């Protein structure tokens, strides 16, 4: 890469090229006029996100230029089984003299999705920089207060093995599910939201890994690589691992996001983070781990779940394909709850490992199930019977 060499700059000249200096057609037309905002006014987020990824159904007159070996280019809508209104209309065909018109914007309902978190460059760096600062500050404060000295050996073991094992879930889903999905959604709004979700998880994985590095330094006998063995062979974790891997194997991008954020995270993620680690830690003299795990919990419950719910809510209430979508979503729900519940149950032995016990496993499970039921109900979907098997 070449670095910029200083270049001399000519003296500034007065050009008067400022807004409002003259009046002429369009002189006050200062808003992006190619999309309709979700609410009354165009937001900053919409301005930097909407329509960056083109669509041959409305403006992209010459169509996609490069295709895969099968001739499909761009972002095929068929990459998910779900449909938004207008999806079935054909891409306008071009021929000599056809002109370049497509359907009126938006050509289909996928374009109506807006990330309620309004994530773009500025927001995502600000948010994540704040999280890492907060996590660092908590760990530093704990080091100075010698807070780790109060941990009993069983809790040390618990953190090195089980809190450690969770980083693999974050890392695997962050990369192979969410980062992967950022190539597959039909609009820039979908793909950007999923890319941001991916960074939350990859960051959370690193937060946990680096936390272990600190514990290695601070706690005698802390074995920083213990999480590898737990992840690879502890029977309590193999169910979670099996489901996590299965999630990364899903071809349909919407199913992958749905299964991860609507099913797996509430039933396994929140069970482990909120109902086990956050409950057990303080009772065992650990006030630091909950702040790190809590940062991740906040990512999920306040941001990732939020955009996911908005995304599927739109589809569940689609003006043309609501029934089609609900049938598919209910199918996914039953299937993934069926696959996930055994993994959640397999974690049960973890509840008896700390000296001071957290709330009972069954109570914890009841809590996440009722939280899950609320999410499902908000989406207007059916609570699958697999939940109680």
């Amino acid at each position: 890469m070449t670095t910029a060499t200083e270049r001399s700059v000519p003296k500034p000249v007065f050009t008067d090229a400022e807004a409002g200096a003259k009046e002429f057609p369009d002189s006050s037309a200062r808003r992006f006029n190619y999309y309709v905002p979700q609410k009354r006014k165009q937001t900053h987020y919409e301005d930097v996100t909407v329509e960056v990824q083109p669509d041959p159904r409305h403006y992209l007159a010459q169509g996609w230029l490069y295709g895969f070996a099968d001739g499909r280019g761009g972002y095929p809508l068929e990459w998910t089984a779900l449909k938004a209104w207008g999806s079935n209309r054909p891409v306008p065909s071009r021929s000599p003299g056809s002109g370049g018109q497509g359907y009126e914007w938006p050509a289909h309902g996928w374009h109506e999705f807006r990330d309620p978190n309004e994530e773009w460059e500025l927001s995502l760096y600000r948010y994540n920089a704040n999280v890492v600062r907060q996590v660092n500050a908590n760990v530093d404060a704990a080091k100075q207060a010698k807070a780790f000295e109060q941990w009993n050996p069983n809790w040390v073991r618990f953190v090195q093995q089980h809190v450690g094992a969770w980083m693999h879930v974050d890392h695997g889903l962050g990369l192979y599910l969410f980062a992967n999905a950022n190539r597959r959604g039909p609009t820039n709004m979908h793909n950007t939201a999923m890319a941001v979700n991916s960074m939350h998880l990859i960051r959370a994985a690193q937060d946990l890994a680096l936390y272990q590095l600190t514990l290695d330094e601070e706690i005698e006998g802390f074995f920083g690589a213990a999480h590898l063995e737990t992840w690879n062979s502890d029977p309590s974790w193999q169910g979670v691992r099996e489901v996590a891997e299965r999630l990364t194997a899903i071809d349909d991008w919407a199913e992958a996001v749905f299964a991860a954020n609507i099913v797996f995270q509430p039933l396994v993620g929140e069970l482990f983070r909120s109902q086990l680690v956050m409950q057990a830690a303080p009772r065992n003299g650990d006030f630091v781990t909950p702040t790190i795990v809590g940062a991740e919990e906040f990512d999920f419950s306040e941001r990732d779940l939020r955009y996911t719910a908005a995304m599927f809510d739109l589809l569940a209430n689609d003006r043309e394909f609501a029934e089609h979508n609900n049938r598919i979503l209910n199918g996914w729900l039953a299937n993934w709850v069926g696959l996930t519940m055994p993994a959640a149950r397999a974690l049960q032995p973890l509840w008896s490992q700390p000296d001071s016990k957290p709330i009972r496993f069954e109570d914890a499970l009841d809590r996440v199930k009722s939280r899950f039921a609320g999410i499902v109900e908000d989406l207007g979907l059916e609570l699958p019977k697999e939940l109680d098997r």
Partner: protein
Amino acid sequence: MSRQSVARAHQKIQELSWEPMYHQPVSQYGTDYTFRKAQKKDPLKQVLRSYFPMQEEKDHRVYGASDGAIRGNMFRQVQERWLEWQKLFLSIIPLPEISAARAMPLLFRNVPNPELHNGQAIQMIDEVRHSTIQQNLKRLYMNNYIDPAGFNSSLRNFQNDYCGTIGRQFAEGFITGDAITAASIYLTIVAETAFTNTLFVAMPAEAAANGDYLLPTVFHSVQSDESRHISNGYATLLMALADEGNHQLLERDLRYAWWNNHRVVDAAIGTFIEYGTKDRRKDRESYAEMWRRWIYDDYYRSYLVPLEKYGLVIPHDLIEEAWNQIWNKGYVHEVAQFFATGWLANYWRIDPMTDKDFEWFEYKYPGWYDRYGKWWENYNRLSTPNGHHPIVAEDVDYQYPHRCWTCMVPCLVREDMVMAQVDGQWRTYCHEACRWTDAEAFRPTFQGRNTPNMGQLIGAREWETLYHGWNWADVVKDMGFVRDDGRTMVAQPHLHLDDPKKMWTLDHLRRMGPLQSPNVLLNQMTDEERAAFHASYVRGGPAGRFARSE
């Protein structure tokens, strides 16, 4: 964090990657390359704990500069000639950026080294950053620059304008086709390593020289992420080279990617830098001089050539030919002249060249005036409506060019035009290398070898064909390049805004003859007519002149 703790942190996060035991991640993108699994080092060594605050800090500087530019009335000294071209550039570039983000997953399953995936994920989010920060810059221009037309309709314009289509290769080439061809060779090895220098270093310098110090702030911030991406590409390239079976594909892809990037990027950035500037000091470098230093010396001599010893076949001939095109064949001048010929089909205003510009061109490119001077004098003469047509429909000894079917820039260096019947259609190509790309490289077999994962060139690739037989007023209306009075055009071949009589409207276009697609006409010819047409076309030029009758 100290260097030592960064190293330890990086070491630690290597523990995060794991091999699946129960299910393999989904495999959605094919490649004909093969990779051997080997322990690799993550070339980035980037830990998010330091990455996020670092990027946030860079943002502070960018957004601080944005506020400062507005408070300091920067637009009182910005050259309109320059900023008008930003309507084109900033309509294109957010898509290549976001496409680079989208390209990263193409590598996950195909480069089986989890150590590299961390760097690819960081590149993904870097690219989200670039796309939205550029989109934001454009929004700021729309709000604060005298003429918002063209900025305000940016992403619609870009999608239906032929210049946007040319630029779109620089995005779609990253995300479709053979995964390694696209996301590694085209994107990182050629587009980022070679051509971001002209995009993000040369362009900003020119912006500053034209009174815009905001664009440099944004683009230097973007460029500061680029060295990471170049390391990603380099690591993947070395792995690909380790397998002898890949060498033939690497040779193919480097030829295609190099030539296409040259055709597309040099066309656009060359035009901005040479024809979009008011800085005519003789000591400022020309695009050709910058190209020689940054692309020829820094990329070709210093980056590519050393890779020859690992078995990389470098397209020496095409690199020399790109230089030949820029230096001897006037590639950038031909493109700028074509853009100006077709000003009416665009969404920005193109300032005529003045004597001062002529002098500079003649100094930097001896012989320029003899070739292009007369035409630009005509452009100036025809720039405000006075009973005549836009220059494209006036007799100025300019033969409207045929499109290159591959790179979609027209066949401007007339002598190089190649014609071939491919997939049942007579196509024209700007150069043999573009014919080869279509007819030989993007095919399911290559030199007798099966390449089932190679992509295809698709789409309605000649813009003119869409409007064959249309009145020009309807063409411009169909594309939406009209101002809010419903008749004044967004594009103008001059910079006067204050005199309505100088502004071209749809009514002026209504009087012109219909637009004709050169490719449709070509396919209607008999074989003899076509042969005669080709023989005459390649004798035409420079500057688009018709062939002199013998």
